[in-house]
Every structure is written in structure tokens, then in C-alpha cells.
């Protein structure tokens, strides 16, 4: 019964309630996986669908993710490595020479909301930093952002660096001047022209 209330708490963006109810369930001895998958992740799946259907907007999705995270923080110390919520780790950053980040930040927030672990390196990041982080965090995807057309060549350099590092991580790119054609040209594994699309793309890539 209470797990449904946790889901409701996420859907009504009530972080305090979600935190409290999660603690209650934990203390009552409810199976952690159940709280995690049915209560929290299940709630975000509903949120995701409502967003795709145009019922929920970006700020509401982000508030729901905040509420879900509040519950997750309560569970984290008790989770075993198999039950870990993360669907995979994503490294994200804006390329060298570019300081623009609103798109990148939105993508990072939405990926976190979708249940991925996101390591946001920030702006003006060179290829080495991207690769280092991907190796350190055993990343499944490296996501590269650029707004300035003059910094797009740095995207190519980063994609190549990731390939040459010999790691399993896939590369995806995005940003206003970036196109699918450019992604293909530089050998990136994927491209999205908006934030929701980026989340879908990562879901697909992580599954392979």
C-alpha cells in the first residue's frame, strides 16, 4: 500500500514525503528491491511516459526526479551492488573552447531523472579529460555538447580519442549547430536534436 504512496509522492513532486515514506518502508522491513523498482523507478517510468505524451513539462519532470532522488538517497547505503539503481554511467561535458552549458545541463538532469549515473565534467573540456573520466567511471556513454560552430572540430577530436582509448564507451553528440550528418561524418555513435531524444538514445545504446 505504502509503495503506491511513494509513487504518488514522486508524481506530486513531494520530495519530503518521498523521503519520509521510503524511510518508513525501510524500517518496516519491506524488500528494498520492491521499494526501489516499484516505488521509485516505477514512478519515473510513469513520469517518462506522461512527458512523452505531453502531459508533463520539463520543469515538472525535473521536480519528479528530485523527489525520486530524495527516496534513493535513503536507500543507497542499504543497496547491494546488484540492486544498484544505476542503469549505466554517462560522462557529459561541453567541448574545449566552449562555455555554453544550458542544453548540456538539461540533458544531464533528464538522464539522471531516467535513472542513469551522470558525471558532468562542466564546460571547456578537452579530449583527455573526457577519456580519463570515461575510464575512471567505466562509462557506457560519453556525451559531448557544443554551441559554437568553431568548437565542433573539438568534438571530432574527442570522439577519436574515446575510440583510440579502446574502451567500450559509445559517443553521442548534440548542440544547436550539430547535425546527424556531422555525427556520422566524425564517427559518433549517436546524435539527438533535443534533450528527450538524448535520453531515448542513451537507453538504446546502453541496452546493446
Amino acid at each position, binding site marked *: 500500500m505504502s509503495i503506491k504512496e511513494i509513487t504518488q509522492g514522486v508524481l506530486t513532486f513531494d520530495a519530503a514525503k518521498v523521503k519520509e515514506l521510503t524511510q518508513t518502508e525501510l524500517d518496516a522491513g519491506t524488500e528494498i528491491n520492491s521499494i526501489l523498482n516499484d516505488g521509485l523507478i516505477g514512478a519515473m517510468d510513469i513520469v517518462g511516459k506522461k512527458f512523452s505524451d505531453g502531459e508533463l513539462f*520539463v520543469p515538472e519532470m525535473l521536480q519528479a526526479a528530485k523527489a525520486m532522488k530524495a527516496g534513493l538517497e535513503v536507500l543507497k547505503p542499504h543497496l547491494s551492488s546488484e540492486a544498484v539503481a544505476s542503469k549505466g554511467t554517462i560522462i557529459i561535458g561541453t567541448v574545449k573552447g566552449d*562555455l555554453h552549458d*544550458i542544453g548540456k545541463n*538539461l540533458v544531464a538532469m533528464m538522464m539522471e531523472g531516467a535513472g542513469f549515473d551522470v558525471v558532468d565534467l562542466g564546460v571547456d573540456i578537452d579530449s583527455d579529460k573526457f577519456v580519463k573520466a570515461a575510464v575512471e567511471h567505466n562509462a557506457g556513454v560519453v556525451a559531448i555538447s557544443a554551441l559554437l*560552430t*568553431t568548437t*565542433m572540430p573539438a568534438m571530432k577530436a574527442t570522439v577519436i580519442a574515446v575510440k583510440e582509448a579502446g574502451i567500450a564507451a559509445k559517443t553521442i553528440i548534440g548542440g*544547436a549547430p550539430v547535425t546527424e550528418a556531422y555525427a556520422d561524418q566524425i564517427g559518433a555513435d549517436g546524435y539527438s536534436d*533535443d534533450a528527450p531524444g538524448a535520453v531515448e538514445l542513451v537507453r538504446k545504446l546502453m541496452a546493446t
Partner: protein
Amino acid sequence: MLASYFNAQIRPRFQLLSQDQIKQIHLASLDILERTGVRVMLQEALDLLEKAGAWVLSENMVKIPAHLVEEALRSAPSRIAIYDRNGSPAMNFEGFNTYFGPGTDTPFVMDIETGERRPTKGLDVSRVARLCDALPNIDFVASMGGVSAEECDPHLSDRLNFALMLSNTTKPILFTAWSLEGLKDIHRMASVICGGQKEFELKPFMIHYAEPITPLQHAPESMQKLLFCAEKRIPCAYVSAPIMGATSPATIAGTVALQNAEFLSGLVISQLKRKGTPILYGGGGTPMDMKTSVNIYGGPEAFLVHVADKEMATYYGLPDFNTGGCSDAKVLDQQAGAEASLSLIQAGMAGSSMVHDVGYLESGLTASCEMIVLSDELIDMFKHILKGVTVDAESLATDVINKVGPGGNYLQEKHTMRHFRSVWYPKLFDRANHKRWTEGGGKDLLKVLNERVKTILGEHKPEPLAENVEEAIEGILGSKINIE
């Protein structure tokens, strides 16, 4: 006889904010500058600010006291005279004089032959410049498009874009630069055109466009460019583009206050570098579409923010930078027509000095020559509207009314002969009856616009650069200008 009326100088304008609201926004911006501060990522700018009395803190943070803003507003010029490539007067940015031109750097263009959207190249820069050179209601040119990576090293393409415009128009140029080096090279070209730095300062024919990064950040390149423009007295539009709800508050007043603070901090820096250097006020501020996360271009919020910005600029006594003739539509359809019209009315009725982005489709990602020509027609009509109405004995015409009397007509009156030509006639909009329209081909407006673009491009020959000037420019470029 003393008449009971007189001819007043009135220009129809849209009024949005009250004086108190304007003052409140100004005070909010002063609060932001003193309490929150801005990040200034260039040592030279930080030193100028600190020396003048601003508080420089760690991590490039600066808090700016109100008196620096007030001093900067006092010294910044309230009028900027822009000349053309030949040194003739072209645009006077003052009062509510309004000038129009295209936008910069779209990655795509609507091909005029195929109607398809394709990546831009050098040919498009030349075309837009030539088209704007010919159109009577377009006052300046910008690189709406750009040379491709195949045609030129992307780090040097800003110079080539500028050179292509120089050789395809004598009208003033709104330009961007990728780096300080690019700006310096373009300035060198401008000095060749004018015949020296002093000559350039006296008769500038170009305006630089640089931006802070919202919220409240001045990136290293932007600072370098702003300072260089101040030093060389290159008129500069230092304009941010907040995205409401994402990089600025989700409310209009908050967005205007934030962007105002960004501009004012840029203004302070420019005036500290060189007192009196010309700078244009501006901002944009459109919502992030919270369903798709896309940054939109049109809509009522754009209207409100731009008019509010103009009213702030007027309060400060500064010329301003606005947008018009642009749309979120992907093709030149009814939405594009509606949004072009609405945005041009906004800019014209606000009375903004420099209205750019004429011809933008797809929220600024695609350039359209047809959209420029449509806007030219619309601007022609609005100019007519903004002339207002004359009310005097001649226009009241009560003697004529008395003579014609009830049931008569005015067709043969001398008064009609004197005034009938002052009515506006379209060049492109169709007013024929159905039969005549069908006989003319039954064309819709897009076809008419496309034909007009092709005719102009086929016929119009812009004044070429003098041979020695062209050689000097090519010397700076390191290549030929003509890349077609």
C-alpha cells in the same frame, strides 16, 4: 488668422511599461550587479573594474557599485552615426529611427532553386548581401549563412564572410567574429576601406555583435572583443539571449532585469576602456519550450521582452538592438508570414534602432531570401503606417467636402489629384480580382517572392570594390575573395 491646431512631431509607438516599472527594473539590475555580481573571465577587464572601484572577488566574480553604472550611462553616446562603404551617411541610431537588416550565421539556407533546406556556403553570403544591397527597405547587411568548412578553414571563415559582404554591398555591415584575431583582421579590412583608424572612427560602416553568456557571465573571447571594439571605437551590440525558464527566470520582468544587468556590466567595462565608445543596448529573451526543450524565437513573450528592452534603452538614452522579420516556422508558410509581420510590427512600433534577423526561419537556424523580400514589403507598409496621420486644413478638406456635397464623388477633384499618390501600393502583395489573378498565373505569395529574389539577383549589380582596395583586402585574407 491664428489656427487652433499645429503640426506636432509624433511618431506612433507602442507603450508597454510605466515609468515606475522601468525604474523598478533598473533598480533590480543594480541589485543584481551589487549583490549577485557577474563573472568576468578576462584579467584586463577585471583590472579595469577594480581600478574604477568595483569589488573583484575570487573565481573571477565582480560586484559592481551603482555609481559605475551611472557614470557609464552618462558617457555612452545617445546617438551613433553609421555610414556606408563610401563614407556617405546611412543610418542614424537615435531617438526612434528604426533600421532593418538580416541576421547572422545560420547553418542552413532555403535553396532558391530547389526550395530544399541545405547547409550554407559562401554563395549564400554573397547572395544575401547582394539582395539586401538592392532592397529599398533593408538598411544593413549581415552574413546570414556562412562559408562552409569545405571552402575555408572554420577558424578563418569569419574574415571571408566579411570580405564577401564587402564586395557585394555598399550598405553598412553587422558582423560577428570567432575570436579576437578574427576581429582584428576584420578591423584591418575596415581601415583599408575607410583609409585609416581616424577615418574609421569618424565614419564607421560596421557594427560588431558580441554576447555575454546568460546568466551573468562574460566569457574570455567576448571580453576581448568588447575591449577591442571599445579601443578602436567599433560600434558594438553587446547583447545576451536569455532563455526564459532555463538561463533566466521564467518571468518577463526577471528576464529583463537579468539581461539588463548583463548589458550594464558590459557597458561599464566598455566605457572604462574608452569613454564614449558607441554601444547598442539589447537583449532577447524567449521561453524555452518546456515540452520539447527547444529555444523558440517568436511568440508573445518575444514581443513583450523586446519592447521592454527598447523602453529600458530609451530610459538610458541608448540606441538599441532588436529582432524582426523572423519565425520559428521551418518553411515560408502562413506561420512564417504571421510571425514576420508580428515581429516587424513589434520592432517598428517599439521604435528600435537596429532590427536584425530579418529573413530567419526555424528559430534562426535557416536563412530565407524569400523571407527577406517578404519583410521588405512589410517594412514598406509599416513605414507608411508609422508616418502617422496629418490633420490640418488641407487634409481635413472640409471645403472640398462642402463642394462635393451629399451623394457626389471625389474622383475628379483637384484635391484627389494632389493626394491620391500618397496611398500605399504593394509591389508584391496581390490585390487583383480573381479573374485577373488567375490570368496572371494564379500564383501564391511564395512563388511571387521566389521569382522576385531571382529577378533581383539576376539584375542587380552592386558597386564593386576598387581594384587596389580589393587587393589589400585579399592581402589580409590571404586568399581571393571570390570563391564561387
